């Protein structure tokens, strides 16, 4: 049975600590880019801060971790890629970016409605000694290619390998948990298989507090958000970027 991996990010629980960003960078060999601005950095997971625009006691703020939404239908980045470097994996639903095939045209970055794709403006460089801590399960990307969240595919690989060693085809769900989910101190990010009706995540996405961004585009993102605050849920279809500030670039 093919899986449909997805997430629910509970915004009421997110404290904006940025642990997910750090865990993501460490897991996926994302190099530090000291020269980067918020526009040129590499942040497959990015915590944004959004306010309701109020002043004084009326002011409300929320942190929104933004990553690849792994759009299920009409996936915008797939259609525009001239290199067939992006595909929606049939077996897992993961939108997979193949940096080695990418020619760096950045059409996908333009097409992505969530701004969840990043361009490598510089060759990766690690502070001395840090290259020893690289994850051997993830290939390092070169300058001139686009990258994004591949839903910690190295962890999926490890889980697949472990299952295969015992002759099994299905992985143990406990073996495949993305780094951001694991690192979140408040358990705001939940991960699961949306194709499995008994998965707690499948039940959670049906909650009235759960929403997705820009559903009117019809791309069926598999990353859901959750909040009890009406003004936060109203952000889902908001076009305006006003009130948005990036926590880290």
């Amino acid at each position, binding site marked *: 049975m093919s899986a449909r991996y997805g997430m629910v990010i509970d915004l009421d629980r997110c404290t904006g600590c940025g642990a997910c960003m750090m865990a993501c960078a460490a897991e996926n060999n994302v190099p530090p880019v000291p020269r980067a601005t918020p526009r040129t950095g590499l942040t497959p997971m990015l915590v944004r801060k959004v306010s309701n625009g109020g002043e004084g006691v009326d002011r409300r703020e929320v942190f929104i971790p933004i990553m690849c939404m792994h759009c299920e239908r009409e996936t915008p980045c797939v259609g525009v890629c001239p290199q067939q470097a992006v*595909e929606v*994996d049939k077996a897992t639903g993961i939108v*997979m970016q193949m940096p080695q095939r990418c020619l760096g045209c950045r059409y996908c970055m333009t097409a992505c409605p969530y701004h969840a794709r990043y361009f490598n403006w510089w060759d990766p460089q690690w502070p001395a000694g840090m290259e020893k801590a690289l994850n051997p399960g993830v*290939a390092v990307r070169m300058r001139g290619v686009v990258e994004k969240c591949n839903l910690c595919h190295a962890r999926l*690989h490890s889980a697949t390998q472990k299952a295969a060693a015992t*002759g099994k085809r299905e992985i143990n769900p406990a073996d495949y948990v993305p780094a951001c989910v694991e690192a979140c101190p408040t358990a705001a990010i939940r991960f699961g298989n949306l194709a499995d009706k008994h998965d707690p995540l499948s039940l959670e996405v049906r909650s009235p507090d759960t929403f997705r961004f820009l559903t009117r585009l019809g791309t069926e993102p598999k990353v859901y958000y959750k909040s009890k605050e009406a003004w936060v849920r109203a952000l889902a279809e908001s076009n305006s970027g006003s009130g948005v500030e990036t926590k880290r670039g």
Partner: protein
Amino acid sequence: MARTPLVFGLGLAVALLVGWVAFPRVLYVQRHQPLEFRHKTHAEKSGIVQCSECHAFRDDGTFAGIPSIAICTACHSERIGTTNAEATLVENYIKPGQETPWLVYARQPANVWFPHAVHVQRAALECRECHSPYGESDEVRIYQLNRVSGYSRDIWGPSISRLRRAPHEGMKMSDCEDCHRRRNVEVGCIGCHQ
């Protein structure tokens, strides 16, 4: 004008000769393995039957590949032969506890994820289907390094033209795809790339 076909023929012959004969010689540089090693002798003298006895899987399903020096030490803690290779093995690698710097014929690029567990333990492929019956050979092959790509010649395969290629010759992505197509196993990019 009568000389035109002659000149064309001669030019074609020279081009083909350069392409098929000279180019591979320039493209590949030959490297010798650090030690003489005979799979056949090891199988005969120590009674090793399965490849996995030395080329083992770890508990988490990862493949250890070339055995560590600890496995060699189990038998070769002292010299048990008179050859130079035996002396080199014991003095240079076993006594200082140094791993032998073998050149790996089947080393894939960094973005390739090849799970041995999926192919060998789940799909029950024989080692020889990709690695040839090398385990029965009586010599270490010369390692041929591609100057341009930095990969072993085993990735492209011994034949430059790749015509009449045996199934175990070549480990390019198209070879993986051919095998998957033959066995009707569909895998996306994420299935083999990391």
